[in-house]
């Protein structure tokens, strides 16, 4: 048994599962429900959870990508030179590009979440502006959910194409 490979795969799977699961949970369950309970509670909840969510999800995303790079170089018979040059490499490269896209989209969603939180706290931002933040936050969260799901699917199927 290749212990470093097993440990790296363990870290990659664990952090990846957390990243994707948390992103989907946030977009499909938490954000719509937080929005439906009214602006006052929404502000309080965002104050308590948005920084925490961003820290955990960003951390998991970084660990997933770094351990993924390590896995490519550590896996017997695989290397970075295969990215884009064979079926496995195409799938992994696609997954990697999608993961990076999801990471930046998630950052955009985090920025709108922070704007919304600050706007609700300050109380001097118009309702239209707050609604615009909410819409953008929703769109980016849903887009992020779709992209990370495709990224996982692409990487999970890479060995079989």
């Amino acid at each position, binding site marked *: *048994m*290749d212990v470093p*490979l*097993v440990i790296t*795969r*363990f870290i990659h*799977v*664990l952090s*990846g*599962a*957390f*990243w*994707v*699961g*948390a*992103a*989907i*949970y*946030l977009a*499909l*369950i*938490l954000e719509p*429900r*937080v929005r*439906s*309970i009214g602006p006052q*509670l929404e502000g*309080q*909840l965002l104050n*308590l*959870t948005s920084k*925490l*969510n961003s820290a*955990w999800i960003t951390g998991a995303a970084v660990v997933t990508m770094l351990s993924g790079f390590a896995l490519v170089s550590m896996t017997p018979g695989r290397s970075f030179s295969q990215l884009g040059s064979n*079926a496995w490499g195409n799938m992994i490269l696609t997954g990697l590009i999608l993961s990076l896209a999801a990471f930046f989209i998630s950052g955009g969603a985090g920025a709108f979440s922070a704007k919304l939180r600050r706007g609700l706290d300050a109380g001097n931002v118009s309702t239209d502006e707050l609604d615009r933040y909410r819409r953008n936050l929703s769109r980016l969260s849903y887009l992020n959910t779709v992209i990370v*799901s495709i990224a*996982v*699917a692409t990487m*999970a*199927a890479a060995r*079989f*194409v």
Partner: protein
Amino acid sequence: MDAEIAILRLLHIVPGVVWVGSAVFFGWVLQPALKVMGPPHAGVLMSNMVKPMVMLFHTSAWMTIIFGVIMAFRVRDPLFDFLWSTNWGTMIWIGALLSVLGYAVGTTGVFTSKKIMNLGAILQGLPTPEQVAEIARLQARAMLLTKIASVLVTIAVVTMALAQHV
């Protein structure tokens, strides 16, 4: 390309990731934050959130388990010979057992949360000290069960992901 295995793998892994990731996020990030927030806001959010959350957990768990079983039968034939006589098989049955246990414990946690909501629904005015104590006891139980379930399904996913390497 083995299209059947690739599709089965997607139908097993994507819901599995959703199940495990959302269970860990709920158990270790969101639930402690809601505890800090306390009543009445945490209660309002939880009662609003519990139905879609339970749907997400059940759907992803059932899809993961069903497609996992189908895939196991497709990749190893006869499966039961491999399950008891190879390292791969040992990792797979341990993972399967842990995931079913995790699902059962998580479902018990959901029932406990529903009990809390039922208690909240029948409250008229301020709760009595006994009711406060009962709600606190049930909340602590629900949190513990959610954490245990998330740990069990996490170990299950890691066990299965590592099966081919042992």
